[in-house]
């Protein structure tokens, strides 16, 4: 039987043509439909539960809504509430006997023998952050941010701007940015006069603090799987940088017993710089994040931070262990105490944040989706521990230990090391 030409099997080429036409015919409305249904909003929410052994408990809910625009821009607003309760070490030393100290609000407080003096407090902090991201052409973008936060004794207002540019076939991204913060510190009970002990007040209720910061960075696609980046930032702080509720003990040089507590005093300027190197590497399935930061400032504080995360991709879920090592040196004017009778230094603080210390963070994040639900949930538990203090909550020795040179006694560090547990629940979905 002779086949009718019309009923011949089509050639491969004509089949391909037909397939292409079908794909195009199906694809065009599909793309149009994707535009119509592409998410226009993103909702992010998280709650932090923070517990610091013997000190502070914090609950911090955060909600963020982002409007996504078709051209790639976005407008976001973030609302944060901090509820803090507990007690913070004043910086004063424990004594062999009972101490009576005056709290910032003017009340007297009895501290038992061997106990580290603390300031009990309860505070709420509310913050609003707004950010607007806008592409400029096809290779550049701008991100503008504004911030406002308020708590009982502190207010912060800030703005920031960041510009980025992609070059070299989008292998290289250059970023520059700057920010300005105008904060006010209004201590409960007035502003103490630094390095005095009699409750003297400066008479100034609102103390200004300004922060000007700049940053520059470059990120580089090295391979299909590897992205690296370097960021540098510098900030200049000026104004009231003292912690109004922290004190420094004046001790008897022979017994190390505290005789009185002076309000701490810090310089009125601080210049801070940091370099951050980051890497993100995609293995066959999992992802490795690694970063290192070096920080230094003109208060003499230097620090090294190494941060490592490994994301195990487990199909629809992921598991991400996290390790962070941190080490800092003490600020030049940090001291555990001042010797009675010695001339007062220009500045002095016993704030543990300015002390030499090393800490380790270990944590685990689990990310998953609920069946039949579009959003993603993550649960993270972390622990931050300080591992360089040998003397845990022990009262000062009566005579102090002999120094290496057999001369001046070594002042034991009475403050308990950091021990912080956190639990963070986060939720994210687009709609």
């Amino acid at each position, binding site marked *: 039987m002779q086949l009718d030409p019309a009923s011949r099997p089509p050639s491969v080429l004509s089949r391909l043509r037909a397939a292409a036409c079908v794909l195009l015919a199906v694809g065009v409305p599909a793309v149009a439909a994707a535009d119509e249904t592409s998410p226009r909003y993103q909702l*992010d929410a*998280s709650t*932090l539960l*923070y517990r610091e052994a013997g000190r502070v408990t914090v609950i*911090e809910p*955060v909600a963020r809504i982002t409007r996504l625009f078709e051209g790639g821009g976005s407008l976001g607003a973030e609302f944060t509430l901090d509820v803090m309760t507990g007690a*913070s070490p004043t910086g004063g030393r424990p004594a062999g006997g009972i101490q009576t100290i005056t709290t910032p609000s003017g009340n007297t407080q009895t501290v038992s023998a061997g106990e580290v003096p603390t*300031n009990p*407090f309860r505070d709420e902090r509310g913050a609003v*952050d707004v950010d607007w991201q806008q592409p400029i052409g096809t290779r550049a973008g701008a991100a503008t941010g504004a*911030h*406002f*936060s308020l*708590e009982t004794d*502190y207010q*912060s207002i800030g703005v920031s701007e*960041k510009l980025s540019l992609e070059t070299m076939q989008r292998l290289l991204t250059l970023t520059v940015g*700057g920010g*300005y*913060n105008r*904060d006010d510190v209004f201590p409960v009970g007035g502003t103490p006069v630094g390095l005095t002990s009699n409750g003297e007040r400066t008479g100034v209720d609102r103390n200004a*603090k300004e*922060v000007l*910061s700049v*940053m*520059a960075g*470059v*990120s*580089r696609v*090295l*391979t*299909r*799987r590897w*992205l690296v980046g*370097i*960021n*540098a*930032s510098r900030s200049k702080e000026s104004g009231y940088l003292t912690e109004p509720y922290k004190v420094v003990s004046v001790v008897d040089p022979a017994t190390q017993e505290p005789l009185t507590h002076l309000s701490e005093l810090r310089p009125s300027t601080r210049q801070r*710089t*940091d*370099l951050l190197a*980051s890497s*993100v590497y*995609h293995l066959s399935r999992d*992802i490795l*994040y690694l970063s290192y930061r070096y*920080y*230094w400032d003109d208060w003499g*504080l230097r*620090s090294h*931070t190494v941060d490592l995360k490994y*994301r195990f991709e487990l199909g629809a879920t992921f598991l991400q262990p996290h390790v962070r090592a941190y080490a*800092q040196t003490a*600020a030049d004017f940090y001291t555990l105490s001042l010797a009675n009778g010695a001339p007062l230094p220009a500045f002095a603080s016993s704030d543990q*944040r300015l002390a030499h210390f090393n*800490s380790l963070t270990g944590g685990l994040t689990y990310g998953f989706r609920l069946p039949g639900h579009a959003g993603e949930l993550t649960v993270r538990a972390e622990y931050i521990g300080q591992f360089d203090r040998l003397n845990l909550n022990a009262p000062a020795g009566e005579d102090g230990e002999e120094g290496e040179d057999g001369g001046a006694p070594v002042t034991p560090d009475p403050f308990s090391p950091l021990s*912080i547990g*956190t639990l*963070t629940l*986060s939720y994210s979905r687009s709609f």
Partner: protein
Amino acid sequence: MKRTAAFAVVLALASCGCAATAVQPWDRDLLAKQQMRFVPLRMEYAVDQHIYFSKEGSIGGHDVGGGGCGCN
């Protein structure tokens, strides 16, 4: 000043792209993933920055500026 100069050198080396090969648009499937960012989990990053800021003497990271607090 020495550190600034060192940073400039590192920046120049990073941008010269000596070790990199071109990654074509069709090879960017992995890089396009949300998790291939320096900060893939934004909310957790913000929480971390706040905690470390309130407990350590250092600052600095991927952001510029940011809100202050009278963290005790």
